């Protein structure tokens, strides 16, 4: 039968719970070291694979960049085109008088032969007109056509005069 003997001098031995704890700590340390080695190996493999992937991607990207550079003239033209179109839209969006001219044109074209247009002033905001009518019938027809106009927001009669030589003079201001 085996007999346990302690050769350490009394007071130098580790006994009881402390011994178990130290043994467990040593074990945890060894397991941790093993984990570290596995972790280190894993991360190294992952790093190498990622580096290879990165280099391959970088090479493909560089090749694509070179191909894009060969089409630089086209790129310049599309950049120029987009820049021009943006600024053209900006210019075309500015207020202008021609829309008001187009809106009023049918109205002045349909004046009777005895009526005449004295003055027409058009800007982006409003249209000022001055007409001469020989007869009351023309004047009435004109007033009626004003009330029939649907394109304009407001029509203001700015002047109305009569003299026996020229007939009726009517001034209106129109806002679209």
């Amino acid at each position: 039968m085996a007999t346990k003997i302690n050769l350490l001098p009394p007071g130098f031995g580790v006994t009881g719970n402390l011994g178990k704890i130290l043994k467990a700590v040593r074990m945890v340390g060894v397991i941790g070291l093993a984990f570290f080695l596995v972790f280190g190996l894993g991360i190294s493999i992952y790093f190498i694979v990622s580096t290879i992937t990165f280099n391959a991607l970088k090479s493909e990207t560089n090749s694509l960049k070179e191909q894009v550079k060969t089409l630089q003239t086209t790129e310049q033209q599309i950049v120029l085109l987009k820049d021009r179109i943006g600024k053209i839209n900006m210019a075309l969006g500015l207020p202008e008088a021609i829309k008001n001219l187009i809106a009023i044109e049918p109205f002045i074209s349909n004046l009777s032969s005895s009526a005449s247009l004295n003055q027409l002033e058009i800007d982006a905001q409003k249209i000022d007109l001055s007409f001469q009518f020989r007869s009351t019938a023309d004047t009435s027809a004109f007033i009626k056509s004003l009330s029939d106009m649907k394109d304009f927001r407001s029509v203001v009669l700015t002047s109305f005069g009569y003299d026996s030589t020229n007939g009726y003079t009517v001034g209106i201001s129109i806002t679209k």
Partner: protein
Amino acid sequence: MIYKRILSSTLPLIIVIILFLVFGNYGIGRVRNLRSQISQTRQDKTALTEKLNMLRTISTTVESSSQFAASALPGENTVLPARARIKELAVANGVVLSNLKSDLGASDVSGLSSVRLNFDLAGTRSEIIAFLKLIENTAPISLVDKITFSESVEGSSATISVKTFWAAFPQTLPAVTKSITDLTVEEKNTLDKISAFAQPASTEIPTDSEAGGESIGRQNPFLP
């Protein structure tokens, strides 16, 4: 002796913890950095592939389109071509042009420069109206700002104020990896509109050698 035993038991654990903290942190940092570079390169690759396909697709049409656009909105002051255009239109429409003057100063709003041209017209009402409608459909872009029209027994006359526009060409290209998009529907509509503009008598821009000048440094890449 007991301390020595405690130290020898705990030392491997302490070393493992230190190794994890130092090398783990360093290794994970390197890998994370590499992954971010891979991710960025993948994005660049996708953008470059799309850009390349886009450039190959549009290369056939973009040249003429950019010429139309540069003709509609040139990069330099358009007073002289606009004056010439107004004179051409007046002759073509049978109206008498007089007092053609341009403002000295140019105004600039958000990179868009403009200058005002004032002139008088004489002719029939329909001729003057036809002339005014044509102005807005010719290159370079001009907008009729104000019309003062008067009629008498001698005929019709008008005093016109027109704004003509230009804008400096872009000086730089975007980064090579920045993607470019095709024209939007709105941009295509604008392009259709300006493509229908009547072009000035000569829209060809001579090269330095054709003009007899000396070429210094790089040419402006945005010259159409």
